[in-house]
């Protein structure tokens, strides 16, 4: 009996042929690995953007999120680069610039060459914040203080080799000043707490979290580290507008990728479906409610963005 089934399966496989693998893909639920803990911003957004995956006009199969947190994302991405199945049923969320910065710094098993991007769903720029009663009202005030007091301007951010750290390095480099970057353990919220409580003079944080804190009246946002102003904060100027040559290298881009070696026709199919899936009005509605800025990019655009980031970060992290 068993033999009969095997024979049947083999003949069926031969019949349909490899060319149509992508045609039947996916025929079972797909898994997506998030390298941060359940409930964090990346996890939270990943769950929202994949909630319509089961619809017929999307994958037709649900996407299940699994979390492999640890070491600022390194644990999950290490696993994804070395152990994940390359059959299209194992996707992962990426965070740029985090994983690229970590791979440049070394000590991990992945680099941009280990993964194939599929599509980008969100972009959360870094912003410079100060407490609500701070004397600083613009980046010029901050730079002026830092020039007069080298190494004395304390400012917090979530750890090393993450978007916040990159923005911090870029600001210091652009202004030609030395400031005291204080990495916190416990992510962006611990860094935010230290600014609100006045433990530090300023900080770099996510636009989405800073936007909420500013709405609540506990901080002021002085500048956005992006190429353009953000729709959530139309009144806050970019760093460039304030004379600091800081581009969008620190923007936290989030999207979907697969391990290198996944069949090309599956990559192509996902690359067509995913951006459309992110555009679903239910997804857009929930993301807006949660204050999470969306930024949809196709596979080609993401490939170009990764390459650009790799070059900028290699330059910035040289000698660190």
């Amino acid at each position: 009996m068993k033999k009969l089934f095997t024979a049947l399966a083999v003949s069926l496989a031969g019949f349909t042929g490899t060319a149509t693998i992508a045609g039947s893909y996916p025929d079972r639920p797909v898994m997506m690995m998030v390298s941060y803990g359940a409930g964090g911003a990346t996890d939270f957004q990943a769950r929202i953007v994949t909630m319509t995956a089961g619809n017929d006009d999307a994958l037709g199969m649900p996407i299940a999120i699994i979390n492999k947190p640890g070491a600022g994302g390194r644990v999950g991405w290490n696993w994804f680069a070395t152990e994940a199945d390359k059959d299209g049923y194992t996707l992962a969320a990426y965070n740029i610039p985090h994983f690229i910065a970590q791979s440049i710094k070394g000590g991990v098993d992945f680099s941009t060459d280990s993964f194939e991007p599929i599509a980008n769903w969100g972009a959360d720029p870094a912003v410079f914040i100060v407490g609500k009663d701070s004397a600083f009202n613009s980046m010029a005030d901050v730079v002026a203080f830092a020039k007069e007091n080298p190494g004395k301007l304390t400012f917090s951010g979530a750890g090393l080799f993450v978007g916040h750290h990159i923005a911090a390095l870029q600001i210091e480099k652009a202004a030609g000043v030395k400031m005291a970057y204080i990495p916190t353990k416990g992510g962006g919220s611990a860094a935010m707490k230290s600014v609100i409580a006045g433990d530090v003079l300023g900080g770099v944080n996510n636009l989405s979290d800073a936007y909420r804190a500013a709405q609540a009246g506990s901080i002021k946002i002085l500048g956005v580290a992006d190429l353009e102003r953000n729709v959530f904060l139309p009144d806050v100027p970019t760093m460039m507008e304030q004379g600091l040559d800081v581009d969008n290298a620190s923007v936290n881009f989030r999207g979907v990728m697969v391990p290198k070696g996944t069949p090309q026709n599956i990559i192509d199919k996902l690359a067509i479906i995913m951006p459309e899936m992110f555009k679903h009005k239910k997804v857009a509605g929930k993301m807006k409610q949660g204050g999470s800025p969306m930024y949809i990019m196709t596979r080609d655009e993401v490939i170009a963005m990764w390459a650009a980031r790799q070059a900028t970060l290699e330059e910035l992290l040289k000698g660190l």
Partner: protein
Amino acid sequence: MEFIYYFGEVFTPISMLLLIGGTIGGLILGATPGLSPTMAVALLIPFTFQLTPVHGLILLGAAYTSTVAGGAVSAILLKIPGAPANIATTLDGHAMALKGEGAKALQLSFISSLFGGIFGVLLLIFLTPVLAEWALAFGPPHLFWLAILGVTVIGSLESNSVVKGLLSGCIGMWLATIGFDDMLGVKRFVFHSSLGGGVNIIPALIGLFAIPQVITMFAKGRFDQDTSRIEVKKHPVGAAFKEVFKRKRALGIGTIIGSIIGLIPGVGGQIAGLVAYDQAKKFSPEKAKFGTGHSEGVIAAEAANNAMVGPSLVPLLTLSIPGSPTAAVLLGGLLIHGIFPGVDLFQNYPEVVWPFINSMLIGQVLMCIFGIYIASFAARVAQVPKSVMAATVLGLALFGSYAVQQSMGDVYVMAVLGGMMYFLERFGFSAAPLVLGLILGPIAESNFVQGSMIANAQDGPMIYFFSGTLNIALIAVVVLSVGYSAWSEITSRKVV
């Protein structure tokens, strides 16, 4: 007293159904090793997508309060703390269960959880603005001293000597340094890929507590399985209430310490139970009975870990800063419904926030009722033959440590630590101080490193760590705590 007007929303049929479902589900999840309150809330958030904001939050509030209390079930009956919050409950709770008083221990734990929990939520309702400022007052130096205060507790915890207790604590603190360090950007002690993310507290907890027991049970099981069968005593609920209110000191200490520690962002409920247990012991005239199945131990620990629930939400709701991992997950739950926490939260969304808080009050009562209901037959777990028990606990340990982050690496960590603990226990070391070291190590280290960085940009570490009222007050308490332990050690030697 605005919140009273919003009780109506909690008593609609759908809300009550969610509340009851959330409470029962929470108790079961909480009782399962590895499924911590944080996990339970995170797992429920996708379900709230389909609910209205009020209903979604009622479900999350009920689940949060009841998972914290549910952790006591496995702590008492199996000596596996469901979450770090329940470590202290194992100390006397499990000793009671071994004496056949499991039902009593469970009843005491649910009643003191109810009392502590309600007190905590009332603090949240009436004192939020004051407490928010208080929570912010704790900067890196203060958290560092607070962690050191925790370290002084280690020595007196469940070991037969202070030195062995401190040594266990040191092993725990060393284990905590394993992994990638976010603040220095280096790898430490990562000699196996399973250790890249460091030692996760939940698998460690399960391994350290469960595995030595399993080994012991397998070793002995063949010989004394039926002879040592425990007689499970029935315990009237009324007597349990009387017992809790007779132990006013333990209940008060637990509730107050839990509320204060719950409030401080970054420390959270992990150590509330242990610190309360230690203080209740120091202030009790029946010190020697602690650890042998004394009701005060259970009452103080469980009152503390539920009292911390309400205050732990203060920084989240008023400042949008999640003070604990569970609060961080709840923040996601609020955001998904378009609710942005902040000082004007109570003005902008009273129709959502108040029912959420009220549901935690009602949830406490439901949790106590269902908890007591299951107590009488759950206590029969003690009668299960050792061989069956050992296999079950081993299964739960494997499941629980894998479930935390779906990682086989965590299972290895659990097994290795568990095997190590079996031998350490034979030499008189115990798991509780080791776990406390594992929890406190990172708090002490990260706040010291961060504080030093800030201090070096300002007036130097001496001024930063040793000046200011709060610093001096904390240092004084540390000195008192060490002094007291040393004094009692010396005097007790004289007697012997």
